[in-house]
């Protein structure tokens, strides 16, 4: 089901350790413009997910960021009945989405009940402003 937040608690930002890692900055910059950005090796096309400084296949250090179409399938999910963080009301789901391009990313679902979720379910991205300074790419049913 959609995540509900405790209004008085700060949702963990991507920079939860106090620094936004340089490697993931293009992803979060993309989210602000409602795009899911992925890093790819410029030389051989291997997806660098999560982002990294060198292609493990061809060892090129030249990479590019490309926008995903935003469609994919549910690959797996977790239902949290005990919250690991005070901002999240239980129960809620974290999902692993396999994007049509191939890479898998962690996200949440919007408007899909827990008992509807199944592996292989087609989903598409939707952007939710969860805090004044935080937008998250989430996934809803296609159509």
């Amino acid at each position: 089901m959609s995540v509900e937040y405790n209004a008085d608690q700060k949702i963990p930002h991507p920079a939860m350790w106090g620094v936004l890692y340089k490697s993931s900055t293009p992803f979060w910059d993309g989210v602000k413009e409602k795009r899911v950005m992925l890093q790819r090796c410029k030389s051989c096309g291997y997806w660098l997910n999560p982002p990294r400084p060198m292609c493990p296949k061809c060892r090129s250090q030249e990479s590019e960021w490309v926008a995903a179409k935003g469609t994919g399938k549910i690959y797996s999910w977790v239902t949290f009945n005990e919250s690991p963080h005070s901002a999240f009301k239980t129960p809620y789901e974290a999902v692993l989405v396999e994007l049509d391009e191939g890479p898998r990313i962690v996200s949440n679902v919007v408007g899909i009940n827990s008992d509807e979720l199944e592996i292989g379910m087609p989903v598409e991205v939707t952007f939710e402003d969860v805090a004044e300074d935080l937008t998250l790419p989430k996934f809803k049913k296609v159509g």
Partner: protein
Amino acid sequence: MAIDSIKDKAAIVGIGVVDFSTDIGRTEWYTACQAIKLAAEEAGVNIDDIDGMVKSVDDGPDPTYTGKGLGIDNLLYHSENHWGTSAMMNAVHAVAGGLCNYCVYYQTAHRASGPEKCISDFLVAREFRDDSLDMVRYDYFSPFGLIGEPGYVAMMYRRYMHETGIKPEQLGWVPIVASENAARNTNAIFFDKSITIDDYMQSKLIADPIRELDCAPKVDGSIAIVITTPERAKALKQEPVIINSVASGYALEGQNYTSYTRDVITDLPEMENMAKELYRVGGMGPKDIKVAMLDDTFAPYVPMQLEALGFCGKGEAPAFIEGGDKIRVGGQLPVNPDGGEIGQGRFITTRIVEAVRQIRGTSTNQVANTDTVLVASGAGGPADGMICRKE
């Protein structure tokens, strides 16, 4: 392929175990010294003769600090390795390579009461100011509430259920057998009596499909192990336990508990790579192993390890663990007769201690005629392992 010059070149000659607790009431510095003193006494090694110290990076005060506490005047060798039993490799290499004579591997962690009772990820993260693959992943997980290891494992485990068809009624036998073994182990503090499949099914799904009983509880503890050469061992108090081989395993796209980007996320390629090297160096195979000490920090990794280490075929592990008979003492492959980490708390070196006791014949849950034990660690991440045997 590495040289196999470490085969049978080191031995465990002493173990020191501070009583486990959920509130130990001492500093880690104190209990580190305490465990090392116990281990040295058990071995019959004078603390002044300890000239090597190793540990894993995240557990306990560093060797130079601990050495100061012990009053050691000179250390010829001190180092740290990453998580798990990997530091055992350092100790074996140091002793076999002649860098030091008596090396102590110690693990001290007060996870239940001490500074580590907060999520260990936070502590690790503080160490990393610059980007690293293992840290960058949090930027992608935490805003969505995927926080904490039970959740990380649950994401993999739901997929594992989907692909293998394993049912909770099968996985439950890992904690059930752990509870039976822990109830017999006077050192284990978590189960006074064994649990049933009903207890397991009623255990809270904290990060569904992971239940509370699938997770090793946090504990305060301190363990030390003395390692030297088999030749020097002859003059000491205990029957030496020969380290037949040690090995480490890595694989592409690996992240601790979150290797979600691999084509297949439901096997343990690090463990498979480690096992290949472990068996090759030791000249052994899975059929030669009498007792398996497996990483049960999270229960799903036990069936996965049984397959990765070659104890059963691909896809056979769910049936192998079901009912518990094959993994109990007396079964085809007794697993963690001490109750494992589920029974004793999250403490990796307990597996080495139990391996030593099984080979000495002094376990509280002894497997008859144990002459070889395999110890594995690092399920769901970089893996490490050891085979030890009777002299």
